[in-house]
């Protein structure tokens, strides 16, 4: 079975029951995607499948066959950070960093769908991603920063 992750095909023999999050972490070795709850509640396993944010802990790996998956490792391109990544560090949108990959991918999908979201739309958009550290305000600010700087992509 083959899944394309961040532009690379990963071909593995797997059990039908294998979850996408385990395929990404253990079979593809991309440990930026985390696991947190098993019930789709916390969102630390969020990845993009064909541009849509999904919870990889409740997606079977076989369901991703033939689709393009983007993980946090795919956000930075040729050494250039995604504005969402830059926004998170500029606005202190992360602390322990465990929810951060899922939160950033949800933000990326949100901004692709709605480049100029209101604060309420951002809060609604990330309400499927829990964060225990930040109280969300700086996450909202980080996404607002990314929305305001779509072309000012910094390289740090």
């Amino acid at each position, binding site marked *: 079975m083959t899944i394309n992750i961040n532009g690379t095909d990963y071909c593995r023999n797997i059990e039908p029951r294998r979850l996408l999050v385990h395929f990404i972490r253990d079979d593809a070795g991309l*440990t930026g995607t985390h696991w947190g709850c098993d019930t789709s509640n916390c969102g630390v396993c969020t990845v993009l499948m064909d541009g849509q944010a999904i919870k990889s802990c409740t997606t079977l790996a076989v369901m991703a066959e033939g689709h393009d998956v983007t993980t946090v490792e795919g956000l930075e391109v040729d050494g250039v950070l995604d504005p969402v990544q830059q926004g998170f560090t500029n606005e202190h949108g992360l602390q322990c960093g465990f929810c951060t*990959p899922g939160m950033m991918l949800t933000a990326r999908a949100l901004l692709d769908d709605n480049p100029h979201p209101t604060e309420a739309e951002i809060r609604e958009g990330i*309400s*499927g991603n829990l964060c225990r550290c930040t109280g969300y*305000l700086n996450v909202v600010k980080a996404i607002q920063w990314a929305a305001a700087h779509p072309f000012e992509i910094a390289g740090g």
Partner: protein
Amino acid sequence: MTAVQEQQEQQQHTVTGPEEGPNEGRPLGYGRLKRKEDGRFIRGRGLFVDDLHLPGMLYGSVLRSPYAHARITWIDTSAAQAHPKVRAVITGADLETMGLAWMPTISNDTQAVLATDKVRFQGQEVAFVIAEDHYAARDAIELINVEYEPLTPVIDARTALHPDAPVIRTDKPGQDDNFVFEWEAGNKLATDAAFAKADVVVKQYMLYPRVHPAPLETCGCVADMEPGTQKLTMWTTTQAPHAHRTLYALVGGLPEHKIRVVAPDIGGGFGNKVGIYPGYVCAIVGSILTKRPVKWMEDRSENLMSTSFARDYHMVGEIAATKEGLIRAVRAEVLADHGAFNGTAQPSKYPAGFFHIFTGSYDMSAAYCHVTGVYTNKAPGGVAYSCSFRVTEAVYLIERLVDCLAHELGMDPAELRLMNLLRPEQFPYTSPTGWVYDSGNYPATLEVAMNIAGYEELRLEQIEKRSRGEAMGIGISFFTEVVGAGPREHMDIMGLGMADGCELRVHPTGKAVVRLSVETQGQGHETTFAQIVAEELGIPTEDIDVVHGDTDQTPFGLGTYGSRSTAVSGAACAVVSRKIRDKARLIAGAMLEVAPNDLEWEKGRWFVKGDPTQGRTISEIAFAAFGSLHLPDGVEGHLDAECVYNPPNLTFPYGAYICVVDVDTGTGVVKVRRFIAVDDCGTRINPMIIEGQVHGGLADGIGMALMEMIAFDDEGNCLGGSFMDYLIPTSVECPAWELGYTVTPSPHHPFGAKGIGESATVGSPPAVVNAVLDAIGVRHADMPLTPSRVWHAMNGGVEPPQ
């Protein structure tokens, strides 16, 4: 001006303000420095325990009890053993042969690693399977057959000491009831006398329900006992690596120098990762048996059902006052539910933690509290979830009592607080229960909060809304925290004193490495501690490597909890920096051929008094220290220093919080509209990180006040075993926090800092509860104030939850 005069001067001029400014580029020292750790996290390149993959690594899984209380009559592991991918199955009987079936807890109790005789809570560890992969391990635990003989459980702590209550700890010789400890503080006679003379006495039962820290990364480890060297490396989710290493040595009989504990990146701790869990011990045993590394990570249900919970305090509080509202005394009778094993993490001298700071921020003549701890058939633990050793229960008690008193007297709760707050000239203040509060200017802080909130306008708006039948509430909380444990003479865990080591080395090129005993779980130590060194020595933060979380690389210390990292290790970091500065002065004197006393310091260099052009930078001095310069007598050729900082006293951060809510009277749904938090944590190292710490704690407060609870049914089934049932706040429940600050430095801390990590978790729950009850006009209702509980409170009253 002497240092003491300077500190008094600072105290008299408490600095205040709203939060300000963008995050700066690169301040040399304190300031809004962006975090050094972010680069790896935003790229998905953090290294969490579950990210480790060692050659030959096996995977463990725990079989857990479905019953809260049952006798184990039979265990059959043969089918699991026969699974082709299983490498070992461990039961309590196996551990018994190694003397490891029971382990000591950090409260000097014992806890079963794997149950041998009985299970004592739902989710207790019964067997451990080690297999070639995670899926196979989970499959194999389903193949283990266990026969249980169910016993009557003790679920409601209020029944635990009934004469006919089943005895839970039948394993303990001489234990014929469910009593754990009894503890008191304050002066009972003086308090009773003050109550007898008081015009007004208000009494209120309140429950601080059982909640869970629930860090998004669950607990786990990779244990690797290397067969050749017999050295154990333990990669683990711990907030206290050094304490864990020593405890593994004491418990397991392993030589301490053959144990290395590594805490890599930790995905949130909040107290949940202080203790040692049975899974860690099983993974170590598994690695010894299989001669291969063994990984064990909890799933979410295991985390919520079996690891350290928090709170579970039944409190009867009383407050005595004059009819004008002057508080005279408080007293409290507390029943503490400690679960099946007493595994609380707190200084061993204080079985109820620091609960006896329950007189809070108010001037009063007497106070007394009596705390009884009991066993129940619930998960063990006790002190966790950012509570500074039970300070959150204490703050909740006094802040609810003050609102109950305001309700009784028909007074405005802000006015009542301003009338009773400790005055600046009373510091240092000795409380009726023996604490010595270091510094504070409480009324100034409350006034900043009231100004940001627009308190008068809010009250007018409330009147106007009430006239239209709308329920708007304004809640205030003023809290005093007590953090930064030791001193070591009074604070220890299992005999290990709470003092922290720190080592700093300046390399020949002027770059530096600082080694800490504490462990960040998101607090930003790699940034903050570099800023402390930068402030003291003028070395740019990017030139300072902060090493932590590895017992082979760092000096001994007791770890990160109770908001002690900045207060204790931060102090240690400043002390070693100053040692290096002093040594640099001697070397600079030799370089410039002047007496050291003729040199003056400015950030980053020593120069000749009166001639600033004649100086040497710390970088130049470092090169000379390792070079061919003839050094003064007694000065060794390096620029290193180490120290162990033993705090002379705790520090006392404080703050004033105001919460504004709107309650839907038809459904009981609470909307937190605004939350104003003004914190005083003394000297501020990185305001950006401080604000982040406060934001997170405020969200915790909303969670506990409105939605979080680990509930149980009568059979002891845990009703909060997943994130579908244990609700924690999302972005839509949290408002845009409004922050302010005041700065009243601690007079005894090397740079005046007090700690901030848990202030908001401690201070915010009563503000939210006070606001909801203010909205609905009810004197008291217990957390969590879920829509149904609020609706019931409005419509005839609501019982405490279970």
